């Protein structure tokens, strides 16, 4: 009886020490889950999820404060990827956050631009080039299409244009099957 109690107590102490040591030795800096979620987000930094950027949204998801269906630029793909990662059921995009739009880039109408630098300050990825009282322009390859530069512009000289498709970015479309649905599936649905 006594021997068993001592043995178990000893074991508890030994394992406790081991765990304590491991907790210090192998301490994880930061939250890997946040990084994983952040890696799945499209990094447009548009704030449509109601958080000020992709990382804050990732942190909110990790804490359970935000749902996984608040990212319109990511669309269905991101929701499914998040659902996979967090082992939740995918759900349709929350319409309050916006709708899925084709990929766009901002283009500054250089005739109308007055060089006020307000859009430069609004751009989350520093994709607008210019100086005070000098014409601004958008670096197309760096623009995420977040639309954050639109509201500050006092002369409405920024337009969102859909990203053109060229031969290098073209991909084969999903095959269309003009197949009559099998009867079994129709009955089931």
């Amino acid at each position: 009886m006594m021997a068993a109690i001592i043995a178990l107590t000893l074991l508890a102490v030994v394992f406790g020490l081991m765990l304590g040591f491991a907790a210090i030795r192998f301490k994880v800096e930061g939250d890997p889950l946040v990084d994983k979620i952040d890696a799945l987000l499209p990094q447009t930094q548009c704030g449509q999820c109601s958080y000020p950027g992709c990382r804050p949204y990732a942190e909110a998801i990790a804490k359970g404060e935000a749902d996984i269906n608040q990212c319109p630029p990511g669309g269905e793909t991101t929701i499914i990827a998040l659902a996979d990662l967090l082992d939740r059921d995918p759900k349709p995009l929350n319409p309050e956050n916006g709708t899925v739009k084709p990929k766009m880039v901002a283009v500054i109408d250089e005739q109308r631009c007055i060089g006020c630098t307000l859009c430069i300050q609004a751009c989350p990825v520093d994709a607008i080039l210019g100086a005070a009282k000098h014409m601004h322009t958008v670096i197309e390859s760096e623009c995420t299409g977040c639309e954050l530069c639109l509201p500050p512009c006092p002369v409405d000289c920024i337009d969102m244009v859909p990203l053109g498709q060229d031969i290098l970015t073209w991909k084969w479309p999903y095959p269309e099957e003009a197949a009559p649905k099998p009867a079994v599936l129709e009955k089931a649905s």
Partner: protein
Amino acid sequence: MALPRGGRTEAGRAGEGFVSNAGARRLWRFRGGVHPPQHKQVSTTLPVRPAALPARLTLPLHQHIGEPAEPLVKRGQQVLKGQLIARPQGYVSAPVHAPTSGTVVDIGEYPVPHPSGLSAPCIVIEADGEDRWIDHAPVADYQSLSPSELRNVIREAGIVGLGGAGFPTYIKLNPGHRKALDTLILNGVECEPYITCDDMLMRERAGEIAAGIGIVRHALQARQCLVAIEDNKPEAYDAMCRATAHLEDVTVVQVPTLYPAGSEKQLIKVLTGKEVPSDGLALHIGVVCTNVGTAAAVHRAIDRGEPLISRLVTVTGGAIGRPGNLEVLLGTPMEELIHQCAGDSGAIERLVMGGPMMGFALHRFDLPVIKTTNCVLALTAAELPPPRPVMPCIRCGACADVCPVNLLPQQLYWYSKAKDLDRVQEYHLFDCIECGCCSYVCPSNIPLVQYFRYAKGDIWTREREKEKADIARRRHEFRLERLAREKAEREARRNRKKAALQADTARREKQAEIQEAIARTQARRRAAMKAAETQRRKAQQTARGRERPSPAARNAGGEGGNEKSGAPAGMTEDAPQGKDE
């Protein structure tokens, strides 16, 4: 894609056993494969003809795998035949040369032969009809050039793989860290139905190919060379045997007709029994495989100094009256080729570039011939299979039986259809060569290859987007860091100013204190002097009252009083001075 089918093919079961042919050479057999109807004899009855010089030539800047070329000419500029008009950008790229003399009339977006039907940057040349060559000279003795110099000449000539993929040849001819290569395979298999341009090239220009073999072998330092020709091309086989008889270690091999034996990895398996690893290149097993047409182009570049400005194109199909092979300048509109071969544009139901198995349908007839155009196939409605409804997959496994790369097309199909891009890669989607055997045998008419192409494109798009997202993340993080740094700098500046201000007031306060102290001591001194004065006066008055003192005694008393009160005053004045310092 466009072939009528007759049920299951006889290719059937996979076997490791080798097939022996007339010679003693041992051959292997790759797994799977199909025997689609050939339709080759229709375009081999006529000899190769040169196509007529077109009035306008449209030269896309992107006719190869890799980066597009960069134009070197301006609108309105006169160019000569063979003149460099666009230079390569980056390592994997190829230059473009003017196919004839004339004027550059435009540089801009024009429709190009591509499955998307989109436009791409092109240089348009209006021919002047003179066909005047630029000064060009052959390489006098290629044997004296190092392989690297030889590759440079080939790069400058704009030569890319003419079998259909268009990979820059000079990269392929680089054995890398290997000193020498074991086997060079010249691919004259041409397994796709309808296409006969390699066949006709071997029949009529075997000498050019043989000369090209010597050059390519020198560039690669290859030990031996195998020329592979399918056994349905006996004339080409004879011609190549005759042309290469004088060459050492060159063997012309007849391989059994089986689609897709002309695919690089399958051909290597047939000839050497070796398999190219899934994530490797043929080079890794000591083999380089190149098309016979490419070898002939290399010969022209080295022995004649001519860049790649023309190629053989098979113009065939039910809608063509006189099908055959034409020597075509790059940039020639396909509709002119159709006219020259007595084609009936009205009867064309589908115009295909390439063969019926791996080619793609074109959206219009005026597209230019590019470096990878081996065949212009004009099919009539009668040649196309009647549209059959796509039925559900019944898991019959016919696709897996014929797959030449040992894949499971039905699994790939399920995951591609479900857009499960991770699983589809686990089933080695990227090993698929898109040969079309699976779609060809599918009893449910499922367009399997289209699903695989879609999945590949989606994965590439996803990777591109991921890359872009990573860049955006880095830029955003950098911006946040910059803003934080700027804020900290502002804060630091403000703090410094504040501290400076505080130090200033402190100093002023101290000064004021010192002044006060000085004032105090001076006041005390004055008070002390006053007191001494009054004391002296009192003493004088008392002395005057008692007795009249002598003037000498009065003087001495005054001096002594002065000395007594002066000493402490001097000390008090010294002290604040020391403090001030």
